[in-house]
């Protein structure tokens, strides 16, 4: 629908896998920071008459 690849990611992490959790979060934040803010789906004041 127009969301860049990488902005939405899924991961399956067990509560025991703390290292994986940290890794995934770091990786995702890097990817998203590189993409920058997503402006499209942000609603500000309704654009109406």
């Amino acid at each position, binding site marked *: *629908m*127009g*969301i*860049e*690849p990488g902005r939405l*990611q*899924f*991961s*399956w992490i067990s509560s025991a896998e703390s290292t994986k959790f940290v890794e*995934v979060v770091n990786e995702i934040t890097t990817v998203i920071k590189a993409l920058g803010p997503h402006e*499209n*789906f*942000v*609603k500000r004041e*309704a*654009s*109406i008459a």
Partner: protein
Amino acid sequence: MLSYIDKIKEISRRLLKESKVDMVIGFRKGTVVMMNEPCFVKTVADVDKLVWDSNCGINLANYLANRTEKIGIVAKGCDSRNIVTHIIENKIKRDQVVIIGVPCKGMIDRHNIEAMAEAEIQEVIETDDTIQVKGAGFEKTLDKKEVLQENCAICVHRNPVIYDELVADEVKEQTDVDRYEDVRHIEALSPEEKWDFFEDLLSTCIRCYGCRNACPLCYCPTCFVDESRPQWVGKSQDSTDIRTFHFLRAYHCAGRCTDCGACERACPMGIKVRLFTKKLEKDCLELFDWEAGLTLEKRPPLDTYRPDDPDEFIR
């Protein structure tokens, strides 16, 4: 297909006379060209108002949800698939319906035909293979195959998948159709192009909810767009809200949509709303080998779990 009507009437009369059903849901002749109106018939005397032609595109399964009577219902391939979905989702009981199956050769696209005519069409004469349209100063004979609704043109389930009576021999199913050409086209766009594509697609939406309300799947007592606590979606003509409505509605139909075309047919603004649901229909086919409404025996992919469900997207 025009000859079906005698058999539809005969079955309806019998069902009503023998009190097998309280009503038969079918179509009566419309008041404008290329339109018929869904109706119910409760007495044998009224059966004669039923009609059948290529203008019976509305999905009658939409009229079944939560009804308590015993109902005879005229059902094309797509209608029958939505009846299956209704039964699976407990919106109607199998023994409550007598399905009068109609092997379908496709319904014609009224808006498309209107756009092809040079002036307003005042009369339409249908034969088995042609549609003849007449208006002030023009007359045209069209090949029915060329003017089908888009979903009918690529339909591979024309015969009812579930029925109690069949009004004619089954028709040959289409095999050499490309069902997802338009979806592939959108898939090939870049994220920005996709965004613009849908922005443009929805630019004329008036939020009448015709697409939602014509859809047999959209039977929620309160739709998420109408919720006030919490209010998920704004109520104005803001484009973010309009887009949210269409995408979320489509997702709610994932694994359930039969591509019956009811949404697109209903849209007064001619928006190709099937482009939202079709991608999900395609994904369900490719990921889960699933087409909605073909069987009462299996649960739809989104409300069941199989160990071999694809999970490559999870890292």
